[in-house]
């Protein structure tokens, strides 16, 4: 029986979410040896990246990951890491111009019209 390792995908159990972004780009890293099978990542991932297999988490399709960070934030066993941040082109451009990575600015006083 094949036990999915850190970088395998569980074929045939993909969510089949219709639209995908760029392939092989996600910074999601999963260390299966640290996983104790609590199931939080399956509970929180809004893109169906994780599924329980043989009492541990397994990755269905890494390309579905949108780097929101919910899984890494709720994994208490350091099995998951991802480079989460604002995925808004305008925010990233502003960050490049000002030399840092700001947020979109929504919610701050006098700010723009996003969100």
């Amino acid at each position, binding site marked *: 029986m094949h036990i999915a390792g850190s970088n395998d995908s569980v074929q045939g159990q993909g969510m089949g979410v219709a*639209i995908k972004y760029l392939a092989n780009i996600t910074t999601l890293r999963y260390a299966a040896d640290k996983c104790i099978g609590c199931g939080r990542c399956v509970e929180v991932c809004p893109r169906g990246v994780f599924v329980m297999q043989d009492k541990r988490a397994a990755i269905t399709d890494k390309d579905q990951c949108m780097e929101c960070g919910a899984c890494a934030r709720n994994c208490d066993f350091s099995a998951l890491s991802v480079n989460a941040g*604002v995925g808004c082109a305008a925010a990233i451009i502003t960050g490049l111009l000002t030399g840092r990575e700001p947020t979109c600015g929504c919610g701050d006083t006098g700010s723009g019209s996003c969100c």
Partner: protein
Amino acid sequence: MQPLQTLKFIKKEPPKWSAGTVSTPVGPIFRASSNWSDADRWGMIKSRTGAFRMNYFVAPGLYAIGDPTADSHILVTANYKLTFDLLRRELKGMNAWILVLDTKSINVWCAAGKGTFGTEELIRRIADTKLDVVVNHRKLILPQLGAVGVAASEVQKKTGFRVVFGPVQARDIPAYIKAGYKKTKEMSTIQFPMLDRLVLTPMEINPAMQKFPWIAAGILLIFGFQPSGILFRQAWSNSLPFLLLALLSVMSGALITPLLLPFVPFRSFAIKGLIVGILSMSAVMPLLDQKILHNVPLRIAAWLFFPIMSSYIALQFTGSTTFTGMTGVKKELKVGIPIYIGTVCISLVLMILFKVREWGLL
């Protein structure tokens, strides 16, 4: 007795969406109606189209739906009023508590990303509302998208309340609870259907159109600027097709590309915007018969600049989707920004060439 509210939000009258109060060991709590008034519907429309949404909020704190008791469920949400309205509507017929966090008038997803729908705020709000006195149990149901900002185990350690992440959509909450806090795959997944994409387009079109007068002024100036001064009539008649093409490229990037997103080839948003820009221009150009379009440098500049403008505008839509991530957008920008700058420069050179020939200098 004044219902429990954070000091800065105390108002003299009950909120318009409230329907009486429920008495609790900590005092009366406003009951939220599950029905929407015309004002609520109008508020939703205004929220989707402009800056109105920046101040559209409810006071954070505890609210009731129906007649909850000390054993009733607690649903946690953001204080953006549209979010709150959607939740209270979907809980119709239930008896439950709603804990509203101070997310500064931002919805759950964006607030979670910024940290305001977060661990600290949830802990603070639980303490503020004396939630442990109001209910006997220690369970909180959070929207799934709040997980981006809330570390469940830390909330449990600091407050004793156990966090479960419910469905993505509020409408699935009744079924989720009925199934014993079990979610189906569909309930756990965020999709991006056409209707959801469509309601986001006003907030793509508006910012783009706010910059439009600058583009229009630039185009008018190019054609009007003559050795004898600025000639308005000539400027207008020559500018018109280019103004139309500029408007078309805004719509290509801000409306058509988002609407047809999964049907446009390639995964890159910049390329999608470029394709839609080229196709829409191909459809419209044969309909424009102005002589100025036959000018070769201008024609080349138009075919370069307008599809690229559509591409840039379409790339902005990545900030509004449910499936694009920062790393991918950074990669798109790394490739795209030099191309955008290069195209603008080439277009400028071509326009200067046009001007120089027009004035007979070459």
